[in-house]
């Protein structure tokens, strides 16, 4: 099976022209486009059942609550979570990590403890730990990289000494590298540490099963998986979440409030203070339906095929003039291509591409420690998703040479 060839027609934005060219959207690692079904689902909510959830006894309030809780159940199924109560809605992956750091970290980390992350983490899985470390005095330790952009796990046993939490991305948003989460999780567990996983680039692109991954906690973000912005997920094993104190306080997250204190609500509401982003949750549920209807195995196969095509097309055409960071084998990576073309600065490259309607990201991709390891200030990143096809890759390939003429030193 493969993905339908007319998939682009499901995404209204992709029918636009930019600077006189049909838009070529190659920045899905930053945020994906949204299919009609997602836009419609949110629209429908506002048009027909807009009401606050978990509060009113009247019909539309009940329907809104029902729609939101259905979305939660869909997400649980989508990632193989044993229970929908383990799905906590947040604002985005960043908030999910802040929740873990504040809540779990605040309770469990002290001066002699260690949190183990890696050199390829997104700032979302770095800075919350750094903020907390400044308060609590624990050590933040880093798994280094191999020259070909994998995690260097040769010293993992030594690195795990004294570690209470391992928090690693399942797929790098710069290198595309897919990390051996299960292997790391098993080792983490063997020293009594918890395993948190950044699924921001993984869940949208590969079949995900939290149990098979061996994760205790998983963070991901709706807008990279055909869903709206403003909605993210923290999944955690019930036992782990249950033991964690609340993060934000307010309405919805309590069972009782008295002058002398409060009783926190049950999972997942304990972590969902205040009125949730109801439309966004429903939109994300529709995104999950959309991706499920495509089949995540087919999504993954499509991306392997297209990544392979892109890697070949770019290196055949440009040879030594181009560096594509990360693993060279498409089956070991996702469709994120961080490109260095001659000595054209990524910002200039993306500007020239923009003139041709091609959207790529230029910058440090919120992974500055990784940029330092790579010895670059920035890269131009083209990233692929379900709606991309060979014509998008061809447009990119064609357009590098003109940028080179203008800017090569």
């Amino acid at each position, binding site marked *: 099976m493969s993905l339908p060839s007319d998939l682009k027609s499901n995404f209204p934005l992709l029918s636009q022209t930019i600077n006189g060219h049909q838009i070529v959207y190659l920045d899905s690692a930053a945020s994906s486009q949204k299919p009609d079904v997602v836009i419609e689902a949110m629209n429908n909510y506002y048009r027909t059942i807009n009401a606050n959830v978990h509060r009113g006894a009247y019909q539309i309030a009940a329907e809104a609550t029902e729609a939101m809780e259905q979305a939660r159940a869909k997400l649980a199924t989508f990632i193989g979570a044993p229970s929908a109560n383990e799905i906590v809605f947040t604002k985005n992956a960043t908030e999910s990590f802040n929740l873990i750091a504040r809540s779990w970290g605040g309770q469990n980390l002290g001066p002699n403890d260690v949190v183990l992350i890696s050199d390829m983490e997104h700032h979302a899985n770095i800075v919350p730990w750094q903020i907390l470390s400044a308060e609590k005095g624990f050590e933040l330790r880093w798994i280094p990289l191999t020259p070909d952009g994998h995690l260097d796990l040769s010293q993992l046993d030594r690195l795990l000494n004294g570690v209470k939490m391992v928090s690693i991305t399942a797929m790098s948003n710069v290198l595309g590298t897919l990390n051996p989460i299960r292997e790391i999780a098993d080792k983490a567990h063997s020293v009594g540490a918890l395993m948190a996983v950044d699924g921001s680039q993984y869940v949208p692109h590969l079949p995900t099963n939290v149990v098979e991954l061996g994760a205790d906690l998983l963070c991901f973000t709706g807008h990279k998986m055909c869903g709206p912005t403003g909605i993210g997920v923290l999944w955690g094993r019930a036992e782990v979440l249950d033991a964690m104190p609340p993060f934000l306080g307010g309405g919805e997250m309590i069972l009782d409030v008295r002058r002398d204190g409060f009783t926190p609500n049950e999972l997942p509401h304990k972590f969902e203070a205040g009125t949730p982003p109801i439309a966004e949750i429903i939109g994300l549920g529709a995104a999950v339906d959309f991706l499920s209807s495509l089949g995540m195995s087919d999504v993954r196969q499509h991306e392997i095929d297209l990544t392979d095509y892109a890697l070949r097309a770019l290196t055949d055409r440009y040879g030594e003039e181009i560096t594509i960071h990360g693993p060279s084998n498409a089956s070991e990576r996702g469709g994120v291509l961080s490109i260095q073309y001659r000595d054209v*600065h990524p910002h*200039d490259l993306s500007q020239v591409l923009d003139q041709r309607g091609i959207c790529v990201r230029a910058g440090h991709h919120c992974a500055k420690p990784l940029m330092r390891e790579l010895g670059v*200030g*920035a890269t131009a990143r083209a990233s692929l998703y379900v709606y991309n096809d060979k014509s998008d890759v061809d447009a990119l390939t064609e357009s590098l040479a003109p940028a080179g003429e203008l800017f090569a030193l």
Partner: protein
Amino acid sequence: MAGLEDLYKEIIIDHYRNPRNRGELDSPPAHKTEGFNPLCGDEVLLTFALKGEIIEELLISGQGCSISQASASMMSAAVQGKSIGEVRDLTRQFKAMMSIHEESIGADDPPPGDGHAFELGDLEALKGVVKFPVRIKCATLSWNTLLTGLDELEV
């Protein structure tokens, strides 16, 4: 629609390819100040030597896109031999060209200089950047970095 030719004037490409005053002075005695554009990862390191109130020499290192590098190169040529007050005036004039006006910049922006108006010369070529709002930060990076460096002298 603004075209690439509005942005990438020949003189900009020339400064990008042949940057003036590249390098680092020994610091100390030279003053040293660093700036970042968190959006795109550009970094600039300025070292400059003062003789009294006059910027006697200013060197630039770091890395960045054509706009940030060309702007830094042009700035280095424009500020040598000027007094601190004159440099503040020139910076204000340059930022005004970038559509950044006094009222829209924060309270920590430059105290009034000596009120000179300068020929912008090569710097005029950067005017087209205004049509590409995301690139304005590239053009102003080295200027803001220099202002920070000058402010540090005063405390």
